[in-house]
C-alpha cells in the first residue's frame, strides 16, 4: 500500500467522524433543558410572542430539518451569537483561537525541549541521580496544580525578581499588537519584523508557557524513558554498537528516532488537552484565549459560545488524530509501506 492511499484512507475516515460529532453536539443542544425561544423572548412575553420566535428560529420544524439547518449553518460559518459580547460566536473564536494556539504551541515546545532530553538521559543513565531527579521533576509537574505553579512563578519572577511582566494578557498595554497574519503574536511579529512586539509578546508568553509545559512534561519524559530503555536493549541497537557506530549516533540516531514514533501519539493528546483544557492558566494570566472565553460564557450562561466550544473541542480532537495518523505514516515506514 502506498503512502497516497494511506493518506486518502485517513482523510475519508474523518468525514463520518465529523458527521457523528455534529450529530452529538446537536443532540446535546436539543436535549438541554430550557427553551431557547423563551430565553430570547424574556420572562414577560406572551405565549403568542414565544410561538412567533419559535417559528422564526425554526424550532417548530421536524428534528431532521432542524439538524439540516444546523449543519448547513455550521458549513456557512454560522455558530450563533454570543449574548454577552453581542457578536457572532465565529468572530469571537477567530480572535481567541490564535491566543490559545500560541500558548499551546509554546507550552508544547517547553515540554518537548525539556521533557524529551530528560527522558533520553534518564534511560541512558538509568538509576543514577539524574534519573531520580527527572522522576522527581515529573512527579512535581503532575502533583502541582497548574494554578499553583502559575502563581508561584508569578510570585518569584514578577513580584520578587521583577523580570516577568504583570499577568495581563499577551502583550504590554503600551505596545501595539503586530499586524495580523496568523494571529500568533510571536509569529506575526517575526514575519513583519516588528522587534518591539516580538520582545513584548515573548515576555508575556514566558511564564504561562512554562506553567503549562511543566504540567504536561511528565508523561512525555516517562514515555521517552520507557521506550528508550526498551529500544536500547533491541537487536538493532546492539547491531549498531557492533558495527562501530559512535555513541551519539547510536543513541540519538538509531535509538531515539525509533523511540519518538510512539511519542507522536502522546504529543497529539497533549496538544488536544492544552487547546481544550488550559482554562485555569488562561484565568491566572488573563490570557484572552478560548478557555477564558468558555469560562466567562459559562458564568454568564451564554449558550451559543458554550455549544460552539464543545463542538470546537470535538472537531479539534478529530483533526489532531488525523494529524497524528499522517505523522505516523511519515515517521514509520512499516505503516507507510505495508
Amino acid at each position, binding site marked *: 500500500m502506498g503512502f497516497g492511499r494511506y493518506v486518502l484512507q485517513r482523510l475519508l475516515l474523518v468525514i463520518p467522524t465529523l458527521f457523528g460529532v455534529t450529530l452529538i453536539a446537536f443532540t446535546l443542544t436539543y436535549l438541554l433543558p430550557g427553551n431557547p425561544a423563551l430565553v430570547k423572548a424574556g420572562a414577560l412575553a406572551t405565549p403568542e410572542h414565544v410561538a412567533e420566535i419559535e417559528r422564526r428560529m425554526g424550532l417548530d420544524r421536524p428534528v431532521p430539518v432542524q439538524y439540516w439547518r444546523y449543519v448547513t449553518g455550521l458549513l456557512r460559518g454560522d455558530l450563533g451569537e454570543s449574548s454577552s459580547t453581542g457578536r457572532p460566536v465565529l468572530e469571537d473564536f477567530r480572535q481567541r483561537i490564535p491566543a490559545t494556539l500560541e500558548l499551546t504551541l509554546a507550552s508544547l515546545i517547553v515540554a518537548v525541549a525539556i521533557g524529551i532530553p530528560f527522558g533520553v538521559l534518564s534511560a541512558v543513565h538509568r538509576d543514577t541521580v539524574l534519573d531520580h531527579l527527572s522522576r522527581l521533576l515529573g512527579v512535581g509537574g503532575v502533583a502541582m496544580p497548574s494554578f499553583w505553579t502559575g502563581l508561584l512563578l508569578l510570585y518569584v519572577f514578577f513580584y520578587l525578581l521583577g523580570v516577568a511582566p504583570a499577568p495581563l494578557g499577551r502583550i504590554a498595554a503600551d505596545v501595539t499588537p503586530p499586524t495580523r497574519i496568523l494571529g500568533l503574536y510571536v509569529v506575526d511579529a517575526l514575519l513583519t519584523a516588528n522587534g518591539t512586539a516580538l520582545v513584548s509578546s515573548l515576555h508575556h508568553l514566558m511564564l504561562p508557557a512554562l506553567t503549562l509545559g511543566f504540567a504536561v512534561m511528565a508523561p512525555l519524559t516517562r514515555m521517552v524513558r520507557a521506550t528508550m530503555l526498551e529500544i536500547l536493549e533491541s*537487536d*538493532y541497537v*546492539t*547491531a549498531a554498537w*557492533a*558495527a*562501530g557506530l559512535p555513541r551519539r549516533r547510536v543513541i540519538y540516531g538509531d535509538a531515539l528516532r525509533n523511540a519518538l514514533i510512539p511519542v507522536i501519539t502522546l504529543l497529539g493528546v497533549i496538544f488536544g488537552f492544552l487547546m481544550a483544557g488550559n482554562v485555569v492558566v488562561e484565568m491566572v494570566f488573563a490570557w484572552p484565549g478560548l478557555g477564558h472565553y468558555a469560562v466567562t460564557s459559562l458564568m454568564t450562561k451564554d449558550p451559543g459560545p458554550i455549544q460552539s466550544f464543545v463542538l470546537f473541542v470535538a472537531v479539534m480532537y478529530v483533526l489532531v488524530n488525523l494529524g497524528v495518523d499522517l505523522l505516523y505514516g511519515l*515517521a514509520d515506514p512499516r505503516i507507510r509501506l505495508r
Partner: protein
Amino acid sequence: MTDLLEVRDLTVHFDTEAGLVEAVDGVTFNVRSGEILGVVGESGSGKSVTALALLRLIRPPGRIVQGAVRFEGTDLVGLSEDEMRAVRGTRIAMVFQSPRTALNPVLTVGRQISRLFELHQGASRAEGRTRTIGMLKLVGISEPERRARQYAHQLSGGMCQRVMIAMALATSPRLLLADEPTTGLDVSIAAQILELLRDLGRRTGASILLITHDLGVVAEVCDRVAVMHAGQIVEVGAVRAIFARPLHPYTQALVRSIPRIDRDVTMEPIPGMVPSLLAPPPGCRYADRCPRVLDVCRRDRPAPRAAAPDQEVACHAAEVEDAPARG
C-alpha cells in the same frame, strides 16, 4: 596457521536480582587465521554472551569479570571505549540471530550499509551508495538498487540475513562473529546462507566464529569446533577428530543426538537440562547429567587436557592417556 584471536579464561557474570548468573566461566579457545570455528551448545549455554563479550558489548548488569581477548596481538579487554569502537565493525563484525530485528526498522537497508562506508572508510555519500550496491550483489541479492531502497519489513528473512552479512563484511573485517545466522530460516535458505558465509570467508580470508546449536551445521562448514556447556567449553578440536572420537560425555551425547539417515541408530535426546547458572556448584557442571560421573567430578572442576594433536577435553572421566594409540 597463526592465531587471529586468543581467548583466555574469559568470564562474564550478570548481577541479577535473583543472584549472580555465571553465564560464561573461564572460557579459553583460539581462532586461527582464515578458519571457521564452530561454537556449539544447547540454548542457554553462553554462546551469545561469549560473542558479545568479544566485542565488549556486555551491558549492565553483566560484566567481564576476568580474562583476556587477544586479537591481532592486542588485548581487547584492556582497550579504552574509543579504541574498542575502532575495532568494532572494521576488524571484528557480527551477524545476529534474528536478521529482521537486527536491522533498524526506520532506515532503508541500503542506508544501513552505506553509512558504514562513510563512517569507517571516509567514503562520500555517492561512493557509499555505489559500494553498497556492490556489496548487496556480492551477497547474492538480485535487483540490488531496488532492494537498497527498501526497509527490513519489506524483505524476506533470508534476504535480511544476506543484508546483515553485507553489513558485517562491508568494511572487510578479519573476524566475523555469526550468532546462529540460520536459525528461523527455511532449510534450503539456511543452506544457502551457510554456503555464502563459507564462500565469502574463503574469498576474503576472514576467520569466522560460527555459533550454532546444530552439530550438523558444524559438520558441514566448520574446520574446528568448540563444544560449550553451561558457560564452559568442555571440548575443542578439529571437526573430523571430534566427530570420529568425541571424548567428553556431553559431546558424545550431542553427536548421538544428530539425526542420521546413513546409520541405523535412533537419535537420542540429551538427558537433563542445562543446569542453572545461578551460583553453580563447584566441580563439573555436567556432573548431574553425566552417565559416567565420578566422585571427583563433583569436587574439582576438570581442567582441559590435550587428548590428540588437535583435540582438548575437560573431563575427569575421559580416557585421554591412551588416546593417541587408538586414534
